[in-house]
């Protein structure tokens, strides 16, 4: 599904990603863990097509396509999705209107007819229930005045609506209390299928109790320094990131 080879990227001559290799197959859930500032969000943003990063080496193959050649919206049309660590507030743009435009943009790309207001509302009601979101949020501007937890849940609502093939979740757990975390994890798990894949980025092991990964990778200084199974996450929780950095240095 996704094959990242020797990916190097940076900003203004400063290297942030230092040669990343990562291969993810359909049906798999991968987790990336790492200390703050290790480049987790940069990887997510580069995969999503954020401008402003210089990609100095490497490639990303996504279902046979060169992902880095596609514009951000084209990636979404091809089934890519990023749940942002910091969802952006857009005052004045109504959430329902925005969500319907997003769903219809993807449908249009696949030659499907537009969902009208009624059809869309039906779809949304289903998904909103799954995430136990308050329907009144949809009448507000995109993310404006949402609490931290509401923003994260709204991201997963968007994911549910767009039904991606490959989703990156960037610290979707941060700022959530345990109940909200369970709801979000449950939502994500329900979207899991044999023909899609997820890359879950997190700082803490906690989320991985609920979204159980097949593979865990540790990112330090823009490099994957260790990969393993879900037990690696537990070990990191116990011993901290210093342990792994020390092993690296030795």
């Amino acid at each position, binding site marked *: 599904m996704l094959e990242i080879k020797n990916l190097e990227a940076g900003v203004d001559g400063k290297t942030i990603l230092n040669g990343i290799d990562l291969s993810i197959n359909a049906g798999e859930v991968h987790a990336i863990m790492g200390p703050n500032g290790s480049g987790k969000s940069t990887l997510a943003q580069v995969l999503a097509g954020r401008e402003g990063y210089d990609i100095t080496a490497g490639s990303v193959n996504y279902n046979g396509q060169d992902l880095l050649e596609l*514009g951000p919206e084209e990636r979404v049309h091809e089934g890519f999705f990023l749940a942002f660590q910091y969802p952006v507030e857009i005052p*004045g743009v109504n959430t329902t209107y*925005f969500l319907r435009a997003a769903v219809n*943009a993807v449908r249009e790309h696949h030659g499907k007819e537009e969902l009208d207001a009624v059809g869309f509302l039906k779809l949304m009601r289903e998904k909103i229930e799954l995430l136990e979101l308050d329907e009144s949020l949809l009448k507000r501007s995109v993310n404006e005045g949402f609490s931290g937890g509401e923003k994260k849940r709204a991201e997963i609502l*968007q994911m549910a609506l767009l039904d991606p093939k490959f989703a990156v979740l960037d610290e979707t757990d941060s700022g959530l209390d345990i109940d909200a975390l369970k709801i979000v994890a449950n939502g994500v798990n329900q979207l899991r299928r044999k023909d899609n894949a997820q890359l879950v980025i997190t700082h803490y092991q906690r989320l991985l109790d609920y979204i159980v990964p097949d593979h865990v990778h540790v990112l330090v200084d823009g490099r994957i320094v260790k990969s393993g199974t879900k037990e690696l996450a537990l070990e990191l929780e116990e011993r901290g990131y210093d342990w792994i950095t020390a092993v690296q240095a030795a």
Partner: protein
Amino acid sequence: MVASAQNCEDVDRLLAVLPESDAAGRARFAELGFPASHDEDWRFTPIKPITELDFTAAEADVSASFEGCAFTEIDGPRLVFVNGHFSEGLSQIGNLPAGVEVRNLTASDLLMSHETGDAFAALTAATFTGGPFISAADNVEFEIPVRVYYLSTGSEGATANVRGYISAGANSKLTVLESWTGTQADYFNNGFTELHVADNAHVEHLKFQDEHAGAFHVGAVHATMGRDAHMAHHSIALGGRIARNNLRAHLNGTGVEAVFNGLYLPRTGQLIDHHMVVNHAQPYCNSHEYFNGILDDDARAVFHGRIHVHKGADKTDAKQTNKNLLLSDNATVNTKPQLEIYADDVKCTHGATIGHMNDEQIFYLRARGLNEVTARHMIMHAFAGEIVERIECIPAREELDLLVWKRLEEGGDK
């Protein structure tokens, strides 16, 4: 101060072509002259393109059409002025309830004299050829909007002076929708509307201005408000090479709620100027001023907003914001929000922002599958929508929302 020789010559040239009218008013205009280029109130808006016009008197024209006008789908009485002259044929007044008057005005209708306002105001008092007279008597709530069309077909310095009178009696209700459009460049429309809102009356006054992009427009609204009056003025300004809006509000009773709400979308080569002074003369009044502008290419905009809280106007609550979204590095905004406070225990805030399109917002929308053009339009539309959504008259609001969206889609596709 003595006006320059050139100024006197321009004034004489203009008065020579305009119809015979009130001598005192003409004298007043001649005495004031056009604003000088160093006049503080005209610092950022060049006056020369207007004073250098080869003035002629705008003439009546029976061939005018409603193309490009707003509010044509709304029912109700309408007054139509073509090149400043009342058009009986195009106007439709119909049956009005008792206490409501809608007609062309005459000199004897005016309350404000030629002493009120600047030279342009004096010019209208002295030389107007027509204008709307709209009134609701005490306790008459007229729910149907009254529409006023100003159609311009002139060119080459054709000058029209119009004078409007809108009056809402105590406890009355009135909605007036104005539409200004034109078909040729280089005409000059100079309008002045006096707006009287009596005690506890409710007035919504909307001015949609989409003059020809090569035309000149000076329009004033002078409003007086009595106790517990509720007044909303909306200025949706899209047209004109130079379009100047002089807004003056006098909150003369306690408990007034006044809203001044404006949106300007100048295109390349255009300058749109709002010059507003809100006078709080009595305690316990609220005034809110919201002005948003979106500018592309080398478009220019000027905003001057002064809130003057007079002595004794305690407990005033006044809030003023001016927000500008620049789509190009060549666009210019001069904004000058001002507060002058001589009362106690007031709550007054003002703020102005000038910014570019937010890249993070654009990226977020693209990361949800929307293309860049759509993403930009959505954000512009939201910015304009903040203003449009304050319009209370629903059909007018819906129409302007579409119209503004269309305008934003025409430009800014970069």
